[in-house]
């Protein structure tokens, strides 16, 4: 059982507000990622839940109980830091058993719990190793086991994979996913890596500049961003302007049927993902453009196309394009996402503003 609620959370460092009006609920057994670039207050939120810093306004409840007055050791939320922070003067077993020993549990019980969790985290046989004899991935698993063994109501993970190399990260992601699925432990996971967040979590919350901009299932955030900033964070870089009239969004590049009526006649922004634009060297489509630059990225090629004063970025599996070439483009209307409200920041050159 574990349910975490953050209501109107505001946290300041001195006079600077780091987190503002933050609302998030993590349901029992759910894995929620808090995603955002570094320095946006993700870790601050975790530390506030863990009780390592005090929040100034709002409320944090774990299992329906407000925790503001509880010291960190009494909260049923355990945090795992970015660095593994294993105690160097203890071996693996002693590190894992640390929390249980602090609770003064019986030694036999502690032994049993340690063995169990070491099996779960694939550490069996490493119990008497010194910390410095472990590889980076093993260290991170020990630090995960050290938290899991306490069976906290809420597990807080602060970028536990960011110090690992690419291969190991993938393995660890799968391990965390498996463990979470098996133990159904309520988890709040912080990361700056969008792929990690999308892959690992049931729901993702995107935090930009101390504000939670959108919360939803990974597909929702990816395909139905709430505003241009969210789209941009997930690699969306094509923005077009247009107006809504009589159930259609009209722009120079495409006409999109829409149910939206708000902002009727006003200039609105819409976006399309780079992999959704169709590109061909034949003059098959209405839109004509000239290739400015191509970038071969392995499984796809990124192409910058100048078209009617707008610059489009296109991802295509086809590598046979070269700069200077004339191409035709098609923006499928069903892939275009119109932002309901007009943003103050008008996007003229999406590449520069990235």
């Amino acid at each position: 059982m574990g349910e975490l609620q953050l209501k109107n959370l505001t946290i300041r460092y001195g006079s600077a507000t780091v987190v503002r009006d933050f609302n998030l609920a993590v349901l029992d057994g759910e894995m929620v990622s808090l995603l955002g670039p570094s320095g946006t207050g993700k870790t601050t939120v975790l530390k506030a839940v863990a009780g390592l810093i005090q929040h100034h306004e709002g409320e944090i409840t774990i299992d329906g109980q407000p925790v503001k007055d509880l010291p960190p050791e009494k909260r049923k939320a355990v945090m795992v830091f970015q660095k593994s922070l294993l105690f160097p003067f203890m071996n693996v077993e002693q590190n894992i058993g640390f929390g249980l020993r602090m609770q003064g549990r019986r030694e036999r019980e502690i032994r049993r719990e340690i063995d169990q969790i070491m099996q779960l985290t694939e550490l069996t046989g490493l119990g008497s190793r010194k910390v410095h004899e472990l590889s980076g991935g093993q260290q991170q698993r020990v630090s995960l086991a050290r938290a899991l063994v306490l069976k906290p109501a809420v597990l807080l993970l602060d970028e536990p994979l960011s110090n690992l190399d690419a291969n190991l990260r993938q393995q660890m992601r799968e391990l965390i996913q498996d463990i979470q699925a098996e133990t159904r432990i309520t988890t709040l996971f912080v990361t700056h890596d969008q792929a990690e967040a999308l892959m690992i979590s049931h729901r993702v919350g995107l935090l930009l500049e101390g504000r939670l901009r959108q919360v939803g299932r990974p597909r929702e955030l990816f395909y139905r961003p709430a505003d241009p900033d969210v789209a941009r964070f997930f690699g969306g870089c094509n923005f077009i302007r247009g107006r809504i009239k009589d159930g259609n969004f009209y722009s120079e590049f495409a006409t999109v049927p829409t149910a939206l009526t708000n902002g009727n006649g006003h200039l609105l922004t819409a976006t399309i993902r780079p992999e959704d634009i169709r590109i061909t060297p034949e003059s098959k489509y209405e839109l004509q453009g000239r290739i400015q630059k191509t970038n071969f990225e392995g499984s796809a090629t990124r192409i910058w196309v100048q078209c009617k004063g707008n610059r489009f970025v296109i991802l295509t599996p086809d590598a046979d394009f070269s700069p200077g070439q004339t191409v035709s483009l098609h923006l499928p209307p069903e892939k275009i996402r119109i932002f309901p409200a007009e943003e103050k920041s008008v996007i003229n050159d999406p590449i520069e503003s990235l």
Partner: protein
Amino acid sequence: MIRINRNLAAAVLVTLVLLPFGVLIMWSFSTRWFYPQLWPAQWGLRAWQYIFGAAGTQIVSGLIQSILVALVTAAISLVMGVPAGRALGLYDFRGKDLISVLLMLPVIVPPLCVAMGLQLWFIKLGLSETFSGVVLVHLTFCLPYSVFVMWGVFSNYNPDYENQARSLGANSWQVIARVMLPLILPGITVAGLFSFLLSWSQYLSTLIIGGGKITTLPILLFALMGSGDRPVAAAVSIVFVTPAFLALLFSARYLGGQSIPGVR
């Protein structure tokens, strides 16, 4: 090349450290040894018999006095040095540079001046010729060292270890005892040893503040050397050096191979 250098280093070390000791040991076992002679003319155990016989009780009480003073001084200097070093190493506040200068002062100013200046106050406060007075004056020399050592240790200290421990369910006392102290143990050993040895070898300040009432080993040693009996003085010197030497050996062995984070 490297091997030669290593041998050279060993030779220099032996010459500089062990040779004076050798002379000291020879002196303590000699009964007649005059200037131009390279070796003592006559060997004997007179000095050692004197130390363990006639002067035995005096030496033992001096030894106990020295150990007590040095232990108490080292303990207080740690109890004060660890929190002070922690504050200086982990937090930024105004006046840090000033504190650093103030801490260095007793080390820079000649000990004679410090002891003479303090004596006037100690007499007024009734601390002169007392055990606590001697410990206090020793602290003026020991504290800067332990604060500086701990300052260095805590500048390289990651307080997230403590946050992690708290999040894992340790209360403040458990964090100090089970996490902080083990993490800084090498630093504590160094600071404690520094303080102990510094206090152990204090002569002038003990003489001025203790006024002859607190007879630590160095006080006895100087008295014996003044009497001109070289073999006895040499033997007392050996008794004086041995505990310090053992402490150093023990800690070198204990600290061997471990890096001491942040010790400047």
